[in-house]
């Protein structure tokens, strides 16, 4: 198990020295900061308060500042969730294919480490990058909104947290694809495809578009095993805005983790038997 952390640590070290990755993070931070400080966000403070964004009210003028700002925090949490996942797929797609490159993989496999440890190390390392990224994004948004509105809330971190949960499944698919076919492009494409499928195809409204009968049943069965990212996003938003958490959301969280675990198991199974 110690080797898993060593490999994850090496991957983090490698990621921290990737200039394009750091540059992209910096660019997003600067973009966010510019947008944040340009926002017209006013809070009329008092026992009862209202908030205005871009000069318009939220329709909840007479309430506490925390309650008035809930929609803003919810939007921020949703942004962290969505953009975090997109950034994660884009930035992490080549870690596994690089590690599996000729001349590197046989060197690693000749070391006294188990193949499963190597794969789990990569998975853990990438998830650690995701957690760092989500924490960073949450901190930036919290700081911006806190400075602008004077209301400090940790709620935005919920969006980042749910993005990390979703990413466990997304990266598991990317990792498995890299084990079968060593290609960062394919890995990223499958990551985006799963994001799309989990955010759009699994919505019940979409199934309702099919005629009831075998077509709808077939479609529902086809998407049944896919993780429900839209529910995870909603969970993050609900947590950020003090909304109600329902059992569907929690089931979706568990389902996503199980789906990710299954994909990692598949990757390990193939990796164990594969010649390099």
């Amino acid at each position, binding site marked *: 198990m110690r080797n898993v952390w060593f490999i994850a640590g090496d991957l983090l*070290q490698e990621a921290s020295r*990737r200039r394009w990755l750091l540059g992209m993070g910096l660019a997003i931070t600067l973009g966010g900061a510019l947008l944040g400080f340009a926002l017209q966000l006013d809070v009329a403070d008092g026992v009862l308060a209202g908030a205005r964004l871009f000069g318009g009210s939220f329709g909840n003028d007479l309430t506490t500042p925390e309650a008035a700002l809930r929609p803003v925090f919810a939007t921020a949490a949703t942004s962290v969730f969505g953009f975090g996942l997109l950034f994660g797929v884009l930035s992490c797609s080549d870690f596994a294919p690089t590690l599996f490159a000729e001349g590197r993989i046989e*060197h690693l496999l*000749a*070391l006294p480490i188990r193949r499963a440890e190597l794969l789990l190390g990569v998975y853990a390392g990438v998830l650690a990058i995701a957690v760092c990224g989500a924490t960073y994004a949450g901190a930036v948004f919290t700081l911006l909104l806190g400075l602008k509105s004077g209301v400090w809330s940790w709620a935005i971190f919920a969006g980042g947290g749910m993005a990390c949960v979703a990413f466990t499944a997304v990266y598991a698919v990317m990792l498995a694809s890299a084990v079968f076919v060593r290609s960062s492009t394919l890995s990223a494409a499958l990551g985006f495809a799963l994001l799309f499928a989990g955010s759009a195809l699994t919505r019940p409204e979409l199934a309702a578009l099919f005629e009831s009968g075998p077509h709808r049943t077939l479609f529902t069965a086809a998407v049944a095993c896919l993780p429900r990212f839209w529910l995870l996003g909603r969970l993050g938003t609900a947590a950020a805005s003090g909304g109600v958490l329902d059992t569907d959301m929690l089931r979706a969280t568990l389902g996503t983790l199980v789906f990710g675990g299954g994909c990692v198991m598949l990757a390990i199974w193939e990796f164990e*038997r594969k010649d390099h």
Partner: protein
Amino acid sequence: MDAIAVTALVKDYGGWLARSKKRALDHVTLRVPAGSAFGLIGPNGAGKTTLLKALLGVIEPSEGHVRVFEREPRDVNVRRRIGYLPERLNMPSAFTALAFLRSVARLKGVAQPTEDAERQLERVGLHAERGLRLGTFSKGMRQRLGLASALLGGPDLLVLDEPTDGIDPKGRADVRAILQEERARGATLFLNSHLLSETERICDRVGFLVAGKVLREGAMLELCGDTSRFNLRFAVDSQTGGLAALGFMPGDQAGAYTCVGCSVAELNSKLAQARESGAMLVELAPQMRDLEAVLLEVMEPRRA
């Protein structure tokens, strides 16, 4: 004890989707005694790298067995005793030389990773470059660093694929010296090199792998030595006048002679007569053919 024992090893490439299977190794049987230096020789595409990968458990045999120190090569405890240098070691370019070695040492379970990494960097002549990123390293420097990574932890078996590839002549001499030190320490060497002269200098056993088959294998002396041709050197100030009459052919240097086409018994008989006539023998050795000649001889039937 054998450090490596390969029995009837077969490796086929091409899965169930492939139109045809390619047999990379065809019933290879090989034994490498512990403490020896074994050189694997063969043309391109002979299956040398495949054999090396099978020894390390990187690929699974289709048939047959591979045992390293009498155990499966995929056994973690066996791989702890192996140092491996691949032909084209692909290293993370963002790492420094020291960070890379430290990482490998940690994964090898070396007790003091930093100290060992520093020591091996010193041995391969890269200590001054330990803080440089690998992206800035030349091919020769990468090769030396790869050797340093193989040496980490003092392995009992060194499996080296083209260890001197891209290294300058001075560096090659350094690598040879390191490999001699490792042998003196008791390590077994398994060397795959296209540079036959390097193999001749380092190895005491060789195996010729052609088209996936081991066509000849054994001690260097057995394979390259000629039992009917001997080189002799007699003391210059002794009576060498009658040697030509006994069948010894004079060589280029003073006192040097060759005995061609005689058995060991005939040679001893002639030597006894030479001594009686006052000639004093200083040196006697079977004539050695170089590995290139033996390789061509091994491959000749296939070419025909």
